[in-house]
């Protein structure tokens, strides 16, 4: 996808777009004139929009990154202490459950 420069063609190249179809990925030709430039602009607009979304998501996630780390560490300790307590009281972990064998 993009401007494809041919060996004997114009320096700017020809614009192609890869389109996913049920039969497979097809390379659609737009040429080097208006159609090509319009298609290239549309692709760039979509790329910028995706980048904006990714940045927004990253910013939102970064706001809680430190709190997330603390929560993860606390969860690890809670799991560990619970497992130790249950093990010492005779429980065993079996198929996702803590059980106490009878007898």
């Amino acid at each position, binding site marked *: 996808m993009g401007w494809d420069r041919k060996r004997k063609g114009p320096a700017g190249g020809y614009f192609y777009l890869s389109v996913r179809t049920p039969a497979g990925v097809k390379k659609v030709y737009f040429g080097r004139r208006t159609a090509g430039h319009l298609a290239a602009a549309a692709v760039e607009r979509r790329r910028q929009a995706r980048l904006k979304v990714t940045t927004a998501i990253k910013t939102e996630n970064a706001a809680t990154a430190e709190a997330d780390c603390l929560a993860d560490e606390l*969860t690890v300790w809670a799991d560990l202490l619970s497992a130790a307590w249950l093990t*010492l009281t005779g429980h065993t972990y079996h198929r996702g459950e803590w059980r106490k064998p009878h007898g």
Partner: protein
Amino acid sequence: MGKKKQAPPPDAPKKKRHGTVESAREMVKLLTVRANEGHPEAVASVQKWLEAFPELKPECRALDELADKAVAAWAASVGFGDKLAEQAARDEAAKLKRELTGDNASLLDRVLASTVVVAHLAHTRAAVMAAQKADHPGIREARERVLSAAQKRLAAAVKAHRLLARKKGKGVRPKAKLKLFEPSVA
């Protein structure tokens, strides 16, 4: 070679153990896994190791500090920069923790209660974020994924807390007193 190992004198200092949080954590984890695999000696080892590890006492206090830090960080996140909302979240978290732990709570109870409180705050923030208008479907989907993860974390924390509470309610106690699980006395 062939020499018999001499037993240390009774007043000899105890053998130096690994003192880092990571090694302590890994040791108990390893022994717990072995105990679950059906090695009875591993159960005794966990017990002895926890009792004979005085370095863990500061860790108990560090765990309380870690819990407080996590609650404070999430309360600030829930506040979204508003100090009043942050204080309200802190008060709510403190109330919830009191309800979950009660009086004379052990370290394990406090850590489990803090996990529930932190998960509740994280879920509150995720729910608020998911309810906000998103400029793009991608942002909305990302927020819904965060909310889904927060719901799972909250459910897991409540499940773990209830499991231990139920066991303790039935009178299940470790055979020997565990120093690690005693409330830390500063």
